[in-house]
């Protein structure tokens, strides 16, 4: 399984390390040429600064090709800034890919002194550790969105189709369950894709 990691800015190396540890192949995406001829079963949009990544996605002309992949059903994991990039509406910022029917609230917990670590139940996975670093939360979600986790009543993880987002950083804990969950989505997508190809061929 090959996972593309958006490596424009932020904590992309941590995602790659965790995914490689559980058996996925990863490649970094820093410019359009990095997508050429790449088999991609999934995409990670990591944490970092959403304003920086949005600016670079456009400046490096990666926005259109990646948006096409995401709307085409490519499984994508967005964490923290990645959640903001996928959100259809952003409070305190501008939407980027705007693929997901959620309203994200940026810096929802305030400045760095508001950053925290906690544990909460995640649908189907049990209790998972959650690290929030100047994180957002999901203010509201449309009816096609499945809420996967809440902290203090706020939505902090959700899924819509093949888009999985967390307001916290699973890549910063040692717990691999959310990445395994994402790889299962990618696996399913790979199977579907090859089935379609066989059918067409």
């Amino acid at each position: 399984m090959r996972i593309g990691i958006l490596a424009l800015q932020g904590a992309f190396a941590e995602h790659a390390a965790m995914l490689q540890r559980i058996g996925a192949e990863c490649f970094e995406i820093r410019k359009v040429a990095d997508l050429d001829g790449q088999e991609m079963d999934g995409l990670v949009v990591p944490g970092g600064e959403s304003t920086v990544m949005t600016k670079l996605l456009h400046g490096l002309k990666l926005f259109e090709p990646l948006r096409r992949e995401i709307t085409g059903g490519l499984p994508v994991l967005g964490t923290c800034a990645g959640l903001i990039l996928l959100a259809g509406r952003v409070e305190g910022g501008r939407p980027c890919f705007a693929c997901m029917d959620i309203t994200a609230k940026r810096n929802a917990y305030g400045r760095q002194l508001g950053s925290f670590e906690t544990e909460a139940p995640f649908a189907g996975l049990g209790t998972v550790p959650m690290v929030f670093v100047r994180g957002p939360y999901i203010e509201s979600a449309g009816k096609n969105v499945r809420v996967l986790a809440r902290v203090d009543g706020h939505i902090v993880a959700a899924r819509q189709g093949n888009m999985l987002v967390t307001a916290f950083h699973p890549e910063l804990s040692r717990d691999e369950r959310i990445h395994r969950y994402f790889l299962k989505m990618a696996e399913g997508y790979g199977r579907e894709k090859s089935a379609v190809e066989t059918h067409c061929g």
Partner: protein
Amino acid sequence: MTQERYELNKNLAQMLKGGVIMDVTTPEQAKIAEGAGACAVMALERIPADIRAAGGVSRMSDPKMIRGIQQAVSIPVMAKVRIGHFAEAQILQAIEIDYIDESEVLSPADDVYHIDKTKFDVPFVCGAKDLGEALRRIGEGASMIRTKGEPGTGDVVQAVRHMRMMASEMRRVAGLAGDELYEAAKQMRVPLGLLEYVHENGRLPVVNFAAGGVATPADAALMMQLGAEGVFVGSGIFKSGNPAKRAAAIVQAVTNYNDAQLLAELSEDLGEAMVGVNEQEIELLMAERGK
């Protein structure tokens, strides 16, 4: 500071990786920096080139001015305190700064002791010329390190020297036998536990940025190729002809630091770079402050 808080503070530095932190003196400059793709801004009253020119004692900035910048942008805001000046740091923590830079750019307040950064909940970044300084600062509670390149000069030579020195010392430590670490820790005057971390991992336990003298996309790419995880740009942006364009070019250069073709395009038509000063031409070596 609890261990959990320290981890969260190291985590914030991880989120800044691959990014450019820009010095700004007004809310307007902060907005330009954010718009150009800065991952954080350093709020200060005067940029290092002007501090150097003005001489005299240089202190923490007016909290009101820092608040103005906090309100102007949504990215993290950092600010500087004098080496050893824990009261200035308490003030910055009170206004909920995102990162404190205990900085040699300001006049040192204590010529022996650095701030005990473990007493604070907000994170600290500190400068280091070599591995010993880096590990001493981390031992005192810094959750991020930067080189101590000569600020306000537009001359990258010292940042390069520090980054190379740190990398070469880390390679040496990684190659030591386990029982040689005790003596090495003694000689380097660093905590043994931190040296053991470097021995096992071949890297610092915190994020390491380049700072001092970075003025062009090529400078930024140079520092990244030498192993920096991101770049501080001080006087280089707002002392240049076209700050917004230069800032955006440096941001892209840090992301694609290995792509010479792109770097060539980014380096075109940036207007006047800041006027540089060679290290031999300056009277005050700020890197010699706080060791």
